[in-house]
């Protein structure tokens, strides 16, 4: 990684310097464009409405008002509960399926995998209306488990695919050795395969966390009572019940983004790995 293509030795020094300066300039402009909105969100949230209008000052009024007017903790809890449960289900079905399709490869596994790949292409909006009607008939609306199940079904195909390709790369010898050691296929899954799959599991967890935490539509349709609203639904529909001024709304946005920013900072590596999995050789 030391010599990048642009650090070409034959170029005169001043041109190299100019190039580097140009690179910094370009990156700085882009980075400011990317971060400025977040800075403006943060700074607005620490001002009262009057201070925000005048453009300077510091106050916690908006944060205070936010917690007065919206049940932020409840919403964050709802989001956490839904996200965690859905990820739990996704992990169970995707690791077992990955083991079945990637390692055991029973006779119909190619067909099953093909169907799973096809399922990944279904856009949410194309199935959500029959889904809504089906679950409404079962009386699932306004229960946590409705969005949990829907998110699990939406996330499972990709997670399964990722697990299958991951398990496929594990050598067959591992299985044969374990069989000789007298382990059955169930024990091999629990004792050998799951521990080996930790990197893939991490990628699935991070990707799904961001996806589910950020989603609006499923929560909007399946959880209509305000007490059950996840944070995204709470923020997106807040205009209907209260009139929040801009600084308060920005405080709410920041509150919903903080868990994501934390996850991003800690697990960025897995996120990038999951996103680009299969792209690089």
């Amino acid at each position, binding site marked *: 990684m030391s010599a990048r293509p642009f650090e070409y030795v034959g170029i005169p020094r001043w041109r190299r310097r100019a190039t580097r300066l140009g690179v910094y300039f370009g990156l700085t402009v882009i980075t400011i464009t*990317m971060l400025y909105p977040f800075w403006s969100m943060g700074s607005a949230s620490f001002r009262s409405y009057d201070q925000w209008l005048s453009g300077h000052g510091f106050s916690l009024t908006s944060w205070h008002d936010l917690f007065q007017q919206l049940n932020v903790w409840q919403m964050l809890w709802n989001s956490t509960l839904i996200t965690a449960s859905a990820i739990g289900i996704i992990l169970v079905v995707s690791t077992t*399926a990955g083991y*079945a399709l990637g390692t055991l490869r029973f006779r119909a596994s190619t067909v*099953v995998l093909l169907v799973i790949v096809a399922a990944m292409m279904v*856009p949410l909006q194309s199935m959500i209306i*029959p889904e809504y009607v089906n679950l409404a008939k079962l009386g699932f609306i306004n229960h946590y488990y409705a969005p949990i199940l829907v998110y699990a079904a939406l996330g499972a195909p990709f997670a399964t695919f990722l697990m299958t390709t991951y398990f496929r790369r594990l050598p*067959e010898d591992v299985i044969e050795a374990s069989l000789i050691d007298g382990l059955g296929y169930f024990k091999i899954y629990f004792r050998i395969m799951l521990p080996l799959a930790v990197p893939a599991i991490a990628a699935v967890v991070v*990707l799904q966390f961001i996806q589910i935490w950020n989603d609006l539509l499923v929560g909007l349709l399946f959880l209509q009572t305000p007490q059950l609203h996840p944070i995204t639904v709470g923020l997106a529909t807040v205009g209907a019940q209260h009139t929040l001024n801009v600084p308060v709304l920005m405080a709410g946005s920041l509150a919903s983004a903080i868990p994501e920013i934390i996850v991003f900072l800690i697990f960025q590596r897995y996120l990038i790995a999951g996103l680009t999995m299969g792209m690089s050789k």
Partner: protein
Amino acid sequence: MKTTETSAVAAVEPVKAPETRARPRSRRRSGPLAVKRQRAGIVFALPVVALVGSLLLYPTGQSVYYSFTNWDGISAHWIGTAAYAHLFHSPGFSQVLKNNAYMILAIPAAVLVALGTAFLIDTRPRGWRFFRSAIFLPTVISWVVIGSIAVQFFQDNGLLQGLLDHSGLGMFHPNMLSHEGRALVAVMITFIWSMLGCNMVIFLAGMATIDQEIYDAAKVDGAGPLKILFRITLPLLRRFAQFTFIFSLIMAFSGIFSLIFVMTGGGPGFGTTTLEFYIYQEAFSSGDFGTAATAGTVLFVAIFVISMLQLRIFRGND
């Protein structure tokens, strides 16, 4: 990230399958152990089949069926292709299709800006990790948050107007969100902005696959940086450019419901109603579930065709 992240990532994956499938299969195909293995495989595959089958594929099938009916959520009568004729003659639907077509125009920008940024970062200046993280950050932020920030930016007397005033362009009052023709442009700009990080990371992954030796060889042959860029780096990144293009397209068509919901609510008029938003509006504002299912099927077919295109491109290249 946002709604269709997974389906988009998935779209890459067909590339991988043919490569990995080459691995030799288990030698034993019969015998008690093989039977056990078959049985275990079926048992372990059951949960995902049950979940995806009942909650994803079944409603998709229903949607296709109901797309030929005048379904109101309770009863449905088969009206055949008349349902599609009805959809395409609905007031506003041509505008909806036009909006989707306009969204395609945002894709080259979303790809090229990301490609340029990736080049800058790939020169590895000091602190490139910081730049990468900062530019990637919006990828993890929900559309709801991005949308409410974007509203502050684009609305009348918002930040954009402030910038114009300060730079002596105060005579312009774009007031983008309340103008039927301009609101979509605001959505497109926000979309490009928030796709930058994700596409950039994909390009960076692509650049990391290029062997340093190729560059060294080119340098020995006397190629300058621009020649290297156009003759080596860009051709080798073709696959990744195609992927980001299709990924962004799928996002633009089926992944920005929440952004539109928060920024404009589909308006003014049908100004920012894309197909995915139209489905929601038909079903849950107008109560016309049948038309919504028809529109949903149109979207499904569109995404499916785009994904297939992607598959073909990848198969063709390798």
